[in-house]
């Protein structure tokens, strides 16, 4: 069966990137963090919340509320509403839907917000109710949570492709370098490769610095028509391509590739460019093995060459392959579902020249990839998005 080529995202732009500071533990709720990020986005471009007519939310800790409850909680009256519970793939998925709503005229201005709180015990509680397959068939075995699941994927990847801990360490260390230029990052101390290698084991071969720090925080951006952004006179980025895929390659005994491999031709065709034309890439970095998988599956290198790719490239802001410039989740922290947004919001800042300390010089085209939801033994959701400079700040 041949697939119809998707319609272009012509006219769709992203504006108003906003990230709250991240906090290790918070006594506040997800509602609090989401409201803060939404206000931050609106204030940054001088919009009032009654000018919004579309709203998309991603969060794990809103219970018992969903997007609907938030409309009344935050006093929003929208004609388009969405809830995207897809973890690390949330931003790409939320954006795809919002973009089509704007194109079709179902909404004029959509706010896409992701945020979560982190109480002392929330991570443990989130684990216990994450998914039915996890409850039935993964957590009873050692209860290592995602650390254990990714340890298995990492073990297999290392055996299959000869990756070493040093290769993964390069990713983590360069992201820490980037984080030192981002005042919002939770991690503010330099990390050396030696420290990385000597860190205590969490679930072999995963050690402390392979793991993200769960925290509280939120990320937000607005989606609207280019005409609207021009009329408001605000900086914006154009959406040129976006893909998503769920439960791909179900017959692979272990996950060595994600759903991107099924859709990347579509992505590059829509974007009208090649992987080589990307100025900055934001991957989903929980954990580093998934970063390598994204390099491979989006076409930065061949399958199995992730380790060589990170050996041959400088992944820091001023390097020859700027990657996760805000420090990513590994160094900036993982604020629940906001971990799925951190790359998108940073990419938006980059191509609109608003990244201040982490700015990659002349960044005009960014690739953002998302990966989410270890339902049982593998991540099910993948997304990827290409953004281009519209109007710089």
């Amino acid at each position: 069966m041949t697939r119809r080529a998707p319609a272009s995202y012509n006219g769709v732009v992203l504006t108003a990137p906003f990230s709250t500071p991240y906090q290790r533990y918070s006594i506040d709720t997800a509602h609090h963090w989401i409201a803060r990020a939404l206000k931050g986005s609106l204030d940054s471009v001088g919009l009032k919340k009654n000018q919004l007519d579309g709203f998309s939310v991603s969060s794990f800790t809103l219970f018992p509320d969903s997007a609907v409850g938030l409309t009344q909680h935050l006093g929003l009256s929208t004609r388009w509403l969405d809830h995207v519970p897809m973890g690390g793939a949330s931003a790409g998925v939320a954006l795809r839907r919002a973009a089509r709503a704007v194109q079709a005229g179902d909404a004029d201005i959509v706010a896409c917000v992701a945020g979560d709180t982190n109480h002392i015990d929330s991570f443990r509680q989130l684990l216990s109710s994450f998914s039915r397959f996890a409850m039935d068939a993964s957590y009873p075995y050692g209860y290592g949570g995602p650390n254990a699941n990714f340890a298995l994927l990492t073990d297999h990847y290392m055996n299959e492709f000869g990756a070493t801990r040093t290769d993964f360490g390069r990713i983590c260390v360069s992201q820490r370098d980037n984080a030192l230029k981002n005042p919002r990052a939770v991690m503010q101390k330099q990390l050396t490769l030696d420290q990385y290698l000597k860190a205590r084991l969490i679930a072999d071969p995963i050690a402390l610095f392979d793991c993200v720090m769960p925290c509280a925080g939120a990320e937000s951006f607005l989606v609207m028509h280019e005409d609207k952004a021009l009329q408001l006179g605000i900086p914006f980025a154009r959406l040129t391509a976006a893909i998503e895929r769920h439960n791909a390659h179900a017959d692979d005994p272990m996950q060595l590739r994600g759903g991107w491999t099924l859709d990347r031709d579509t992505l590059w065709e829509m974007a009208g460019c090649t992987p080589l034309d990307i100025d900055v890439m934001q991957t989903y970095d929980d954990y580093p093995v998934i970063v390598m998988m994204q390099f491979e599956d989006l076409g930065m290198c061949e399958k199995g060459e992730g380790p060589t790719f990170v050996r041959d490239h400088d992944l820091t802001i001023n390097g020859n392959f700027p990657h996760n410039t805000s420090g990513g989740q590994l160094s900036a922290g993982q604020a629940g579902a906001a971990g799925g947004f951190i790359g998108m919001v940073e990419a938006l800042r980059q191509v609109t020249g608003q990244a201040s300390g982490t700015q990659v010089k002349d960044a005009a085209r960014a690739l953002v990839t998302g990966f989410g939801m270890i339902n049982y033994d593998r991540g099910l959701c993948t997304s990827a998005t290409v953004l281009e400079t519209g109007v710089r700040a």
Partner: protein
Amino acid sequence: MTDPLLAPPKKNPQRRSTSPTRPPEMRSRAALGLTAAAAEGRLALQCCAECATWQYPPRDACVACLSNDLPWVDFPPQGQLLAETTVQTSPRLYYRERVPWRIGTVKTDVGPIILVHIHPDVTPQSAIHLTAHLDRAGQGVLVAMPPQETSNAMDAPLMRELTADPKHRRVLLTDARAENAPAMAKALKDAGAAIIFIGESESWRPYTARAALQEIGVEFMPLDVTDTLSVQTLAGEIGGKTDILINNAQFVRPGGALARGDVGFAQNEMDVNYFGMMRLAQAFGPGMCKRTADEANSAVAWVNLLHIGALANTPEYGAFAASQSAAHSLSQSLRSEFRTAGLRVMNVFSGPTESDWFASLPPPKVLPQSLARDVIKGLQAGVEDVWSGDIAKDVRDRFRRDPKVLERELTFGGDGP
């Protein structure tokens, strides 16, 4: 090869005993099929009745054809270990106190990918043999074992968590006068039990098996399960070191209600078989529940010897069977109460045994040695239900096929007028 488990040293009374904690117990309804099979020592997974696809984790619809007809079928246990990790830290207290904990991903020969506990004797990235056990939460879990048997495999800490092996444990057998007492004591001794306490009522009254028991080296303790004070007194004395309690006290007489002139025997049956179990549970249960994580000789299992008439009444012993139904029902209640501590209740169902009070019944009958062997095997496997002898298995299968049909089969009165 696993190092043999050594007898644990005397406990330091100033050290904190590890509190009873459990792995996660929550499961979907579908997943309980794994538990039900593991409870009797079987490995079963869902196999689609329409398209014969094996699948795991348990689902409510076939992943290949969307059929809802997903029976649990005995599963071919061969597979290959693809990847593994050793969990070093966990937010769950049970694992936090037991790390490092080895888990892995298995590709089974017939298809499904399974996350498993890994036995220490398994070689990385090699063939494995899959087994199912109940964990401390009483839920079925899957374990990768080496494809060939290795020495002392059941001594590994993982297997001590999943089984109720009598090795190095202290056992109370409640009735020295029961016909199965010497065989039971001998089997426990052979299985490596550290101490075998045996309850003896009316010690002034002689019985022939006493010499044999003495020779095995049991410790005689005064115990009458119909006397609350006697049960409480003994619990006060040895309750803190009873790791396995095997209740073999049983009162049995033939006949249903009409064969007897009054309720005298029935009261005895209930007093020993039902209230006796309850007295023991009330006296020994709380203490055992507090000691379920107490090192190699922790409290681990509660064993009831039940007659298969507990499932469906056997009219020749109609009143006795009623007491067995009561005892069975109480055992399920105990199972629920003990499970929060991880203490296992194992029911051993048998047909008529080779004993005086079943003399009028035709064979087959269960020999004391067979019963004892099945009890030990059940403890070593860590199961919840044991079916000892052909009659017990026969009644079980008929009961599962159709309880009402079984009732009629058992209560045929012969050709009347």
